[in-house]
C-alpha cells in the first residue's frame, strides 16, 4: 500500500521534473529541474532495494555532473533575448507528436515481450547492491570500463590543449 503510493508520488515527480527540464526557458531552471528528476529516480531505485544505485545517482549525477552543467550555463552568460530567440516555434507541436508516438509504441513493447511479468517486478534482490554493481563493473565488463576511462582522459587532455595553449 505505502509502496504503491510512494511509487506514484515519485513517478509523478520524475515525470513532472522531466517535463520542466525541456519546457523551462531559463537554463538554470532546467538544470535544477533535472536535479529534481535525478532525486525522483534515486527514490525509485531505493524502492527497488537498490540502495547503492540510488545513492550513486545522487552523488554522481545530481551532486557532480549537474554542478558542472550549471557552471557551464553560468559561464555562458546567456541573455534573456538570446534564450527567447533559441526557443523553437513548433516546440509544443513536436512535444505533442512525441507524446502520440509514445502512446502508440508503448503498448507494442508489451506485445513484443509478452512473457515478462511486469506487475510483480522483474529485478533480482541483488539488483543495484554494491557487490553486484562492483562485479558487473570490475569483472564482467572490465574492458569496456577501462576503455571508457580512456575516453574521459581524452576529453580532459583535449580540454587542456584548448584552454592552455602554452603549458
Amino acid at each position, binding site marked *: 500500500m505505502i509502496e504503491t503510493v510512494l511509487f506514484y508520488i515519485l513517478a509523478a515527480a520524475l515525470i513532472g521534473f522531466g517535463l520542466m527540464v525541456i519546457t523551462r526557458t531559463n537554463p538554470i531552471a532546467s538544470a*535544477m529541474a533535472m536535479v529534481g528528476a535525478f532525486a525522483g529516480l534515486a527514490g525509485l531505485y531505493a524502492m527497488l532495494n537498490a540502495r547503492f544505485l540510488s*545513492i*550513486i545517482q545522487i552523488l554522481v549525477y545530481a551532486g557532480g555532473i549537474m*554542478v558542472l552543467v550549471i557552471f557551464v550555463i553560468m559561464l555562458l552568460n546567456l541573455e534573456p533575448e538570446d534564450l527567447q530567440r533559441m526557443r523553437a516555434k513548433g516546440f509544443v507541436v513536436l512535444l505533442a507528436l512525441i507524446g502520440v508516438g509514445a502512446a502508440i509504441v508503448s503498448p507494442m513493447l508489451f506485445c513484443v515481450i509478452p512473457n515478462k511479468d511486469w506487475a510483480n517486478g522483474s529485478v533480482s534482490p541483488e539488483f543495484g547492491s554494491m557487490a553486484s554493481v562492483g562485479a558487473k563493473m570490475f569483472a564482467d565488463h572490465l574492458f569496456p570500463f577501462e576503455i571508457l576511462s580512456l575516453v574521459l582522459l581524452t576529453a580532459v587532455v583535449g580540454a587542456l590543449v584548448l584552454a592552455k595553449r602554452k603549458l
Partner: protein
Amino acid sequence: MDNQLFTLINIAVMTVVMWITPLQFVPFMIWLERKGSAIIQDRIGPNRAEILGVRLFGMIHNFADVVKLLNKENITPSGSNKFYYWLAPFWSMTVSLLPLLIIPLAAPIMVGGHNIVFQAANFDVGILYVLSITSMGVFAVILAGWASNSKFSLLGGLRSSAQMISYELSMGLAIVGLLMVYQTTQVSAIVENQGALVTAWGHALPLPNWGIFLQPFGFILFLVASFAETNRNPFDLAEGESELVAGYHIEYSSVKFALFFMAEYSNMVVAAFVISTLFLGGYQVPYAPTEVLMAHPHGVLIALCVLVALKGGVLGYIFQVHGERQEGLKGVRKAEPFFFAYLGYGLALAAIVVLFLSFGWTLPDWAPGVMAAVLQLGALLAKVFFFCWLFVWVRWTLPRFRYDQLMRLGWKVMLPLALVNLLVTGLVLLTQK
C-alpha cells in the same frame, strides 16, 4: 506492543532526534566561537546581554541574536530570480540537517525484550549517503550566488562551489582508504570494528582499532577536506570579507541570512560527528568495548558519576576563575557558575542515591544496557565537542589561503597524497593476508 511497531516508533524517534541535534548544537557553537575567539585574542568576549541579571557568560546573546535577526527588514534585491533566491537558504539548511541520520549514538541495547537502536538509518552504504548529501550542499551556494544578481555573490558562489567540488575528491578518496581497512561501508559495522585493539601482522598492539591509528594519513586528509567542505577558515574564500564583502550571502538579510548562518554551524557539527564516528571510534569508549561495559554495570555507574562530577567541577572552576578575574561577578551572576556547572555534582550524587535506594546493590536487568548507552553517548559527545572546538581554534589561529594556493593544495597536493595513501594501504593489506 509488538516488535514491528516498536521498531517503527524507535526509528521515528531517532530520526527526529538526529534531525534536531545539529539545531541544538548551533547556539552552543555560536557561543563557543565568540568566547573562543575572545580567549585566543585575549579579550573578555560578549557578556552584556542579560535576562533579569542572568548572563550565563554570553549565552544570552543567542536570544538577542534571534530577536535581532527576526526584526531585520527582509530584503529581496531587484533583478534577482525570486524563486531560486528564496530556495537557496532553505536548501542550505535542509541539506545540513540530513547527514546525521546514519550516525549511531550508542550500541543497540535490549530492554524488556525489545531491541532499541540509537541510529536512525542503518544502510549498508551509509558513508556514501553522507557524501551524497553533502555534495548536494553545493547547489545552495551556487543558487544563492547566481540568483542574488550581484557580482560579489556570484564570485563567492563560483569560488565556493569550485572549492567544494575540488575537495570532495580528496574527501572521498580518504574514506576509500578507511573502507579498505574495515572492509565495509556500513557505519554501524565500522564503529563496532573500532572497539577492538589494533592487530598488525598477527600482533595485537595496545591501541584501540580507531581509524586515526589505522589511517593517520587519511585522517589528516579528511580533516583538511572537511574544513574546506564546511567553508571554514583557512578555506573560507566563499565569504572572504576583505575581497568579496560577504560572498554568496551578501544580498541576504533577516531570516534568510539566519538560515545560512545556522547552516554553516550545523555543517560544522555534522562534520565533527562524522569525523569522530569514522576516525575516532564513534561511541566506543577506548579499551572498553560494549561487551565489557555490559558485564561491569557497577563500574560503568561509578565511571558515569565520576565523569559527571568531574565535568561539573572543571567547568565550574573555569567559569568562576575566569568570571572573577576578568568580569568581576556581582549579584545574581555570582550564583551562575554554581547553577550552570556545579549542578553536575548534585546530579551525580542524586543518581547514586536514587539507584541505591530503589535497587540496593543488585541492579535491574535493564540497567547495564542503559548505563552503557549513556556512557557511550558521553564518549561520542566528548569527541564531537573536541572537534567543534578544533574548528573554532583553527579559524582564529590560521590566516586565509589565496585562491590559487587553495586550488594548488586541493589538486596538486591533497589528491596525489590521497592516491598514494590508497596505494600504501592496499600494499599493507596485501602483506597482512
